[in-house]
């Protein structure tokens, strides 16, 4: 069972920086593990804590929210506001018995294709080391 387990990781990423950065990783053919699925939003400010709860409740093993660097937000400060909320989320998850390492927020700019690949690699490694989400086991 655990042999076949592959982590399910959801990424919600902003259109202007991280999505563009992920596209750039593609143009540069920078290889990284395929264990991530992404949803594009215009700004990480859009990320409702509900989305995170929903993903983990549905059995996600890890989650990544990625936006512009501070000061670089296409909408001035959406990423600040997201970061505040995401920081809060980490402690909420912890209280729920989900290792907070399963969830992270990163900042990848449109020119940081290589960084995007590194971030995904790192998230996949971290989540793989942690194993399946405790909620997933609960579900089954």
């Amino acid at each position, binding site marked *: 069972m655990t042999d076949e387990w592959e982590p399910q990781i959801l990424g919600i990423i902003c259109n202007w920086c991280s999505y563009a950065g992920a*596209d750039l990783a593609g*143009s540069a053919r920078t290889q990284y593990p395929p264990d991530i699925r992404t*949803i*594009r*939003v*215009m700004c990480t400010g*859009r990320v409702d804590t509900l989305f995170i709860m929903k993903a983990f409740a549905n059995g*996600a093993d890890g989650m990544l929210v990625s936006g512009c660097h501070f000061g670089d937000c296409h909408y001035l400060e959406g990423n600040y506001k997201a970061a505040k909320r995401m920081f809060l989320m980490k402690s909420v998850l912890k209280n729920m018995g989900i290792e907070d390492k399963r969830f992270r927020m990163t900042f990848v700019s449109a*020119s940081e294709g290589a960084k995007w690949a590194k971030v995904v690699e790192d998230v996949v490694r971290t989540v793989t080391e942690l194993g399946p989400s405790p909620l997933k086991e609960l579900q089954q």
Partner: protein
Amino acid sequence: MVDETKSQKPRVGVYICHCGTNIAGSIDIQALQEYAKTIPNVVHADDYQYMCSTPGQKKIEDDIKEHDLTGIVVAACSPRLHEPTFRTATKEGGLNQFRFEMANIREQNSWVHMHDREGATDKAKDAIRMAVAKASLLEDLVPKSVPVEHTAMVVGAGVGGIQAALDLASSGIKTYLIEKSPTIGGRMSQLDKTFPTLDCSQCILTPKMVDVGRHPNIELMTYTEVESVEGYIGNFDITLRKKARGVLTPTEAEARGIVGGGCNGCGDCEAVCPVIKPNPFEMGMAPRKAIYIYHPQVVPLIYTVDFDSCVKCGLCVDECGDKKAIDLEQEDEFVTIKVGTAVLAVGYELFPVEKKTEWGYKRYDNVITSLEFERLICASGPTGGKLIRPSDGETPKKIGFVLCAGSRDNTGIGKPYCSRFCCMYSLKHAHQLHEKIPGSQSYLFYMDIRSFGKMYEEFYYRIQDEGAKFIRGRVAKIEEDPINKNLYVMTEDTLLGQPVNIELDMVVLASAVQPTEETDHVRHLFGVSQSQDGWLLEAHPKLNPCGTTTAGVFLAGVCQGPKDIPDTVAQAEGAASAASIPIHVGEVELEPYFAMCIEEKCAGCGMCIDLCPYAALALGEKDGRTVMQVTEAKCKGCGTCGGFCPGGAIWMQHFATPQIVAQIDAFLLGGEQ
């Protein structure tokens, strides 16, 4: 947000693009297509070599009618590339264009998982399933059309900015040309000659500068900086800071009721000013006063007071007399303008090459930069065009030119990129040396001579023929003779495989270029991204090289990446053309990703109001209740309010909570369990 089509059962068509082998090489298209047919709501699935081609788009158009589709999913490249294409096809097929969703299986899949066919195919399946889930819930939206202000702005008045402004203005658009320095002309006005034609730089630039000065559609604002930028394409509200110049133009004087007064550029003030400072236009090699012009050809010909060094003795005021042009108590003024589009042409500066300590710049008198050489060889420069070496004023006979001085440098000290025009100007410098100083000898220390432009290789040939010596070796070290200040340049002649140690009178470092100090500030004002190396980031390196991620903001010249004059001017014309299109069309369509209030859910708590960076939200009365109201024109669709609303009362069009949740569910609950 709630319409009758929503109750209709979704019928989604899925199209999978091979993109030649770009996608098909790493993903099993056949398996994908078969899988797509099993996804709930999918009534049709197809694949094609190139979905973006006319036959590919035709498939979508035809199928919408044939299969009565309510949503379209194309699994192909990034939506950042072809979303507009497929939206058009969707619209052509008779469906609202916003009922289209793209699954990125190229940039974020086949290209990054090239050696994991199974993993990539699984990922693509999930991506399509998620896209279908969203497409099933997409609604008809109407893009918002807004009128475009019939004015443009160009920031930076070097040759790029000048050209962009002239083009915009000549196409009938009122154009503000903003320059932070007291004069326009930029770097090009500091150059003596230009390669490969050897035109006098000032001679070809000055007419353009004069044109700018008298073009009826150009409002030139020198010594002015952009203070803030608000609004969006078509309607930018710009606040400009007109820095206190301490000197009135004739028009400004007249506005103050001083008839026939204002600065006429006579220079009497400068003569009496007791404060002496280095002139940055002359790279600090000549003095200027606290009241100054950079050089005699400045446009506009108006003096400027450097308030940082002015001692306010008032001698200049007395000397100016009845013209009353000088106001030592002047303060910065703020001016607001409204423009439809903007072109950024904020240029470059030299990399501080003293950081490469092995070459001794700023430690050895006779090691200078290329821009210093330009001024020293220029007839209007500090020495009247007499090339001398700084240590003793002697005429240098043997000069070394160090190419790639800080460029192509991966140490973290220099710049990893090629600065692109140093090879060519160094060839030009060698020519100028040979021309000016009989019996002189140039040595060019190079790694590769990159003479890629039109007539550039021919120019290289010519300079070689003139007797320039090319030594293929990057300079390892420069030592100074402590007595006579001659320089010993050490490298290896890599073609000979022999170390060389050449005694020279002077060395010119072809320093790398870098974004100006202000570039970062300007890009933040306009919401423009930066490349890894700090240059401003174009929307697409090949297909949209003048555009940026901010609609209505365009790039020209070196601020986007190193360029020589021909390329700068070409890009400036491109940027001007791109910037003029929305203005000439007169209106632009904005993506209707606005926030909307679901009033029955809104508790009127007002927490969203402060979250909006654009002040687009406000509380208002509706049917006796306090609810949030959106000013659509101000909303840019970031969704920060929607991400926070505790009651779920904000509906972000096209990124609505049910749509995103459907994607999450589709990923985690909808797969092959």
